[in-house]
């Protein structure tokens, strides 16, 4: 559960610019409590990956944090670190040690010419200062902990000898080897078969429970979040449009974009039915719009939505939405928005 008094990560008013100076992430603020699991959801271009890469200090070339603070650890304590001002050397003390990360394509994060065991040993020796024998023993323990069968054999294998699911387990073992406070999984299960995806998600939850690490799960798939996150943060066109406890947000989405995401998500029903889409497309990255950034695709837009920026409006128990409707500011009754008429399928939906 969220414990605001003991935050692991505090992102406050984060702005990120892309080459050309456009603001791709705007005023993003959220906190992650110790041992909490939070899902960061949005379509491609929503700024979710730039947000998590800012936390890791690995923004693509030309992108930069232009405003806001990212704090690791509780604000006033010795271990608190203000990441946005970090030098390269300071980052080395954080990345892989206090913050671990796994990404979509595990093979590209491993050295193909070294055995996976050696790569984990290296991390343990550099990161935790273990001796050779200790590091070997600990590696085998970690490989066992992430559910790799015959860990002693896997230790001596090269990345090309392992399947995608096994490689992702190796990456997770490396990411948690230095007992980080925070683990970031950026689309870490997207490319895997469903059966393996479910196993990896379960593994992440188990590590969270056993090691008390906070988990930031970045994904485009609301269904993944539904099953493994305490809280969900929904991003659209660079902004957080809604956040709150997962069960509450899914049961009563307050922002029309969340509601639309929910309508297109997998519901585990297989009979013939009409499939919904979200009509239109998001604004150009960093487009300067006077009002709500979702207004062009929203079924409820009125003139006021486009006049001025919409601030996040607190609903209840940590649930916020950046929309005038549930906030009761449009005169309509507050509460979850109703589904707009089913979108016409499919001609001319975009293009």
């Amino acid at each position, binding site marked *: 559960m969220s414990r605001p008094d003991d935050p692991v990560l505090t992102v406050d008013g984060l702005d990120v610019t892309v080459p050309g100076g456009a603001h791709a992430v705007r005023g993003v603020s959220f906190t992650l409590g110790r041992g909490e699991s939070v899902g960061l959801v949005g*379509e*491609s271009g929503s700024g979710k990956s730039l947000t998590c890469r800012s936390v890791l200090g690995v923004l693509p070339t030309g992108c930069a944090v232009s405003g806001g603070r990212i704090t690791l650890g509780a604000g006033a304590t010795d271990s608190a670190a203000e990441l946005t001002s970090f030098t390269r050397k300071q980052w080395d003390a954080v990345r892989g040690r206090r913050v671990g990360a796994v990404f979509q394509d595990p093979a590209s994060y491993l050295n193909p010419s070294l055995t996976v065991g050696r790569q984990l040993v290296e991390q343990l020796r550099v990161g935790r200062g273990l001796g050779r024998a200790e590091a070997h023993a600990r590696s085998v323990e970690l490989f066992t902990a992430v559910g790799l*069968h015959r860990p002693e054999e896997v230790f001596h294998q090269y990345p090309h000898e392992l*399947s*995608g699911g096994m490689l992702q387990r190796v990456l997770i073992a490396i990411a948690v080897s230095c007992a980080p406070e925070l683990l970031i999984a950026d689309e870490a299960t997207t490319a895997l*078969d*469903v*059966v*393996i*995806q*479910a*196993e990896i*998600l*379960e593994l992440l939850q188990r590590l969270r429970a056993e090691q008390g690490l906070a988990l930031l799960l970045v994904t*485009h*798939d*609301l*269904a*993944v979040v*539904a*099953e493994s996150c305490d809280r969900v943060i929904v991003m659209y066109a660079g902004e957080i449009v809604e956040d709150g406890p997962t069960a509450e947000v*899914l049961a009563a989405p307050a922002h029309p974009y969340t509601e*639309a*995401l*929910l309508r*297109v*998500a*997998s*519901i*585990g*029903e*297989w*009979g*013939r*039915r*009409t*499939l*919904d*889409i*979200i009509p239109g*497309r998001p604004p150009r990255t960093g487009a300067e719009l006077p009002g709500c950034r979702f207004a062009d695709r929203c079924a409820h837009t009125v003139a006021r939505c486009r006049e001025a920026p919409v601030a996040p409006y607190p609903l209840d128990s940590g649930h916020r939405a950046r929309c005038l409707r549930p906030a009761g500011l449009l005169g309509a009754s507050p509460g979850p928005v109703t589904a707009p008429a089913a979108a016409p*399928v*499919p*001609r*001319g*939906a*975009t*293009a």
Partner: protein
Amino acid sequence: MTTALLEISGLSVSYGRRATALRGAGRTRVLSGIDLTVAPGEILGIIGETGSGKTTLARAAVGLVRPDEGGIGFEGRDLTGLRRRELREFRRSGRAQFMFQDPLRSQDPDMTVRQIVAEPLAAVGASTRRERAARADEALALAGLDSGALGARTPGQLSGGQRQRVSLARAIVTRPRLLLSDEPVSALDASNRNLVLSLLDRLRRELGLAVVVISHDLSSLAGIADRVAVLYRGRLVEHGPIAEVLERPRHPYTALLTASAPSVRREHRLLPAQLRADPGREPWPDARGCVFAPRCRFAEERCREEPRAVPVTGSHPADSDSAGSHSADSDSADSHSVACHRAGSWRERLG
């Protein structure tokens, strides 16, 4: 009984060096004894994990792979008996088309959208340049794309969803009877996935196109497929009307797949952990018997003998598919079959 468009019977395929008198073990069996039919206007989903043989099955269906045994009938003609030249003519006729995975790699980055879409017509060789451009525009319109706005662009200037629809337009430009699509939507977000699936559904309705969707991901079939075939290590383990197979799976592997598929709703569903084999169990002597036994929680002595596919009794095909008007009326095609010794009894052991 409707005539099947595609009729696969007893299909087996191996890869590797040709067996010699001295060494017969040079080849790996990737498909064994596959029976499948596809009727005009029907959508069949083939589900399987990496390495299950699903792509090989699709390639064999259009004559791109020579089978060891079995027949592939297309419009009543046996493709396995064709000579090399006849087979090439068949492929160039564009009666059966393949829609490739990963448009970014399968589309020439220097060609315009219109050229990419018109290219298969050049192989057919009949029409003039002007006719080809007109046919390309027609195919783009069927794929929900505005040829006026997009026809002169290159793939790099399109979004992922648009590129996938260009692949679709290219595949249908020859007015095929059968479309095989390999992972048509797994790289797309949920809204674009629904858009492309709706397009496939419309094409089968309006053109009577038969569609085979190959995927590792059940959500690639949601809402549109009539039937599903579940492949595991080259064997068809379960096959039948989609709602029946996925909502009341009879094979433990199908049950594991549906339990693992993430969903924003989770009601009355099994958990993947209830279906996985106990990790402490003795390793299965995997050379013989049921292909799933090494991973099956319910495997027992009789599973050392390979199970044959048998019709499921006590099913209710009538209530499973309310939109049955599009599907084949052939009785064999509509039946639910499963290859598992324990199909009727494993649920009792769920605990």
